[in-house]
């Protein structure tokens, strides 16, 4: 009895303490937010009078900037930035990258170093605690930070960034940018912008052992232009027979990339792209839940055929990537998921296991089902968020200056060359628009075997800085076989038009998330069970559809369409 009393008193005390503390600090913070709001208002006013502010710009700036002009600050200046540290090329203070940036711009970074695997977690923590750095690069999903006010609506400020604006205009990025606009009509990150989707076209594909496919009488080069999944299936059966049966395919990324690739050809979101399972139907100009459609059934039926015939093992969906890779390296399996950078890794490893020249790898153009599209159609990639703190602490002019620095480093041709290739004459040469890495330096498939690495030893070719650009720029870094692959891909397959955008507000998002997570969990679980044969597609299909409906799929569709129609 006494104990209960003690505990309840304690609980009460804690609550009171909590509320009092909360009330107090809450008020303080509330005041801050108001200030911030006021400031944004003044900004809005300012934009309205951009013409006027041009006059202001003519006043002496303590830095140079502009389209095709190097950003240079008269005084040395330091900006704080979060840095996603890659374990393959861990941060070094004495990288040429840092000194090269400082030499040209007089800017140096105060870095918050975070290992890449945990980057998102720490980024989120720092923003939540109000301790964010000014520059927050490598942001894939900014939506959590939008309503809290900790991150600037950067779309209000892009007009000060000449290189950025130039790219948007030259390559007509307006529709792409609409995809990141939030419910207030603004966007909150400076995205990486490509001229072509994913730089050079969809990079995720399958790589096959061409030597063995050829020997089995399967000529992928002739087939791939127009093949569909049945042709592909029959080709694999032939190869399987040729090698005497058994599993010839054990895929990586827990099958998520594969499901994404295959699903896309059936017009359904799956695997990595599963999202909330919603698909746009241009014919009726409305959205539907694709995961219970007939297309979906066809998709899982196809996938289950690969398993049933013993071509693919069901471990694909559960094994670690290294296991899948090892099976491929030793010649046990004959095809494997791949992307731009994996291809080179595969070659390096197989030169060791099988020996150079004793195998041939070939990136295939993915078969078709319902459309003739590539997988990727987004020309945006991760982006840079700017902490609102930067505006508070640097003032408007200071912020604009920083943005112009960012504009130069991330968006100008000079900046792009610098972070990619390094310093001309020192690490690379450029003749007639062709970049050539110095012979003693290697980088993903370029100059294999050279003693120094562009990223490890110099800091260039760095994922934090290197993003977006023209097709030419993106292609310049590709090895020959990749260039050849993207040529094939782009001539055989089209780019899918962008879906119209639907933007939800905070409350809608909260409600939808409550439906989405259990629903998509269930879909993913059922999908894999259908594919691996734990569930029977014909017998259990109706039950599956009913369960999706029991999980509120219809309510979700309704919310989607209501909002979509109201925003049209």
């Amino acid at each position, binding site marked *: 009895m*006494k*104990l209960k009393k*003690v*505990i309840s008193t*304690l609980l009460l005390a*804690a609550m009171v303490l909590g509320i009092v503390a909360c009330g107090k600090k809450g008020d303080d913070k509330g005041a801050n937010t108001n200030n911030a709001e006021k400031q944004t208002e003044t900004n809005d006013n300012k934009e309205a009078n951009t013409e006027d502010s041009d006059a202001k710009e003519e006043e002496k700036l303590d830095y140079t900037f502009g389209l095709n002009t190097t950003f240079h600050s008269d005084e040395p200046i330091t900006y704080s930035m979060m840095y996603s*540290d*890659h*374990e*393959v*090329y*861990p*941060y070094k203070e004495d990288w040429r990258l840092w000194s090269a940036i400082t030499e040209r711009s007089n800017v140096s970074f105060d870095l918050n*170093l*975070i*290992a*890449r*695997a*945990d980057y998102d977690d*720490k980024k989120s*923590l720092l923003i*939540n*605690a*109000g*301790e964010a750095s000014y520059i927050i690069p490598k942001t*894939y999903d900014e939506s959590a930070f939008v309503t809290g006010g900790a991150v600037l609506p950067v779309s209000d400020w892009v007009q000060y960034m000449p290189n950025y604006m130039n790219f948007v205009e030259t390559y007509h990025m307006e529709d792409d940018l609409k995809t990141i606009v939030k419910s207030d009509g603004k966007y909150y990150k400076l995205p*990486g912008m490509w001229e072509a989707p994913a*730089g050079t076209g969809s*990079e*995720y594909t399958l790589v096959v052992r061409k030597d063995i496919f050829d020997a089995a009488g399967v000529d992928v080069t002739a087939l791939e232009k127009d093949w569909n999944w049945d042709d592909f299936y029959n080709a694999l059966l032939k190869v399987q027979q040729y090698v005497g049966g058994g599993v010839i395919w054990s895929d990586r990324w827990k099958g*998520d990339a594969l499901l*994404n690739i295959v699903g896309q050809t059936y017009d359904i979101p799956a695997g*990595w*792209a599963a999202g909330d399972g919603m698909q746009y139907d241009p014919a009726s100009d409305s959205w539907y839940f694709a995961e219970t459609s007939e297309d979906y059934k066809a998709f899982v039926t196809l996938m289950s055929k690969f398993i049933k015939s013993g071509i693919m093992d069901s471990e694909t969906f559960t094994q670690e*990537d*290294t296991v899948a*890779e*090892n099976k491929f*390296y*030793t010649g046990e399996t004959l095809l494997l998921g791949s*992307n*731009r*950078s*994996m291809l080179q*890794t595969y070659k390096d*490893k197989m030169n*060791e*296991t099988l020996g150079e020249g004793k195998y041939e790898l070939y990136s295939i153009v993915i078969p078709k089902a319902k459309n003739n599209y590539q997988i*990727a159609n*987004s020309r945006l*990639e*991760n982006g840079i968020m700017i902490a609102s703190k930067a505006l508070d602490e640097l003032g408007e002019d200071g912020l604009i200056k920083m943005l112009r620095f960012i504009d130069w480093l991330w968006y100008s041709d000079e900046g792009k060359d610098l972070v990619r290739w390094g310093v001309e004459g020192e690490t690379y040469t450029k003749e007639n628009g062709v970049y050539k890495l110095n012979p003693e330096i290697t980088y*993903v498939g370029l100059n294999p075997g050279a003693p120094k690495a562009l*990223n490890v030893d110099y800091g260039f*070719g*760095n*994922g934090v800085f*290197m*993003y977006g650009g023209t097709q030419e720029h993106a292609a310049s*870094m590709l090895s020959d076989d990749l260039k050849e692959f993207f040529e094939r891909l782009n001539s055989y397959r089209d780019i899918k038009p962008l879906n119209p955008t639907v933007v939800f507000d905070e409350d809608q998002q909260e409600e939808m998330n409550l439906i989405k997570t259990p629903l998509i969990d269930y879909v993913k679980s059922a999908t894999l069970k259908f594919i691996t044969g734990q569930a029977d597609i014909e017998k259990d299909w109706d039950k599956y559809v009913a369960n999706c409906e029991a999980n509120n799929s219809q309510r979700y569709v309704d919310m989607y369409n209501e909002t979509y129609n109201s925003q049209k």
Partner: protein
Amino acid sequence: MKESRGYKIFKVFNTILMIIVVLLTLYPFLYLVAQSFSSEAAIYSGKVTFFPVDFNIDTYKSIIRQGDFIGYYKNTILYAISGTIISLFGTAILAYPLSKPYLRLNKFFTPFVIFTMYFGGGLIPNFVLVNALGLRNTIWAMLIPGAISTYFVLLMKAFFANLPQELEEAAAIDGMGTFGIFTKIVLPLSKPIMSTMVLFYASGLWGNWFTPFIYFDKKELWPVALYLRQIIYGAQSTNELSAGFEETAGIAASVKSASMVLMALPIICVYPFIQKYFVQGMMLGSVKG
């Protein structure tokens, strides 16, 4: 001493069981050791089972060369030693009074301590607090906020409570003060639990990557655990479809296993020295009034 037949059979059974345990726990570790001395090609073609294939120490060389491995190791040792001392002190001075049943306010203090095992503040408030106290990016962030583990306090309390009270009473009658009794009678009698706590706290600090990950922004302060996590996890949590143009190839398997070995080795080496404190019975005439 004569042994019954039953006891002899038991001993045979016991020995077999221990051998099984040793095999089950030692083999995976030896496998990691073997991997760490093998060539990468041998690992992914599945040739490594028990002995290294293509024996080499390149992996270790490259780990030690990469980053500032020696610096990280120094940090780890510093954190482990100073953190253990602080934790041990805090735990002992809390557990000792709590172990006295005649202290009436313990009816409040014990639940006061236990309550914190079930309700935490969450990451953000803790971060804000540590930041406000100015501990962020200092060694103290590693040592202070997590200094006392309630779980260990309660274990130590259980141990103290089980010590024979007669010795303390006798000392009190001899005129020894409370503090004297604690340091001269109780602590010497508590070597087994103290050495256990040293082991627990030290290994906890040794492997702690999370605290430094949260509070340290500069690599100079990183301990080995955080560096090794970076190597072992790599892209583990990255599942973005578009990784950009970055090289996404992971770290070699031999590097991962070598990291594990380097992580576990020091604790394994230190352990036998600590172990001697709880193999022998401590009471044996250690204190006479």
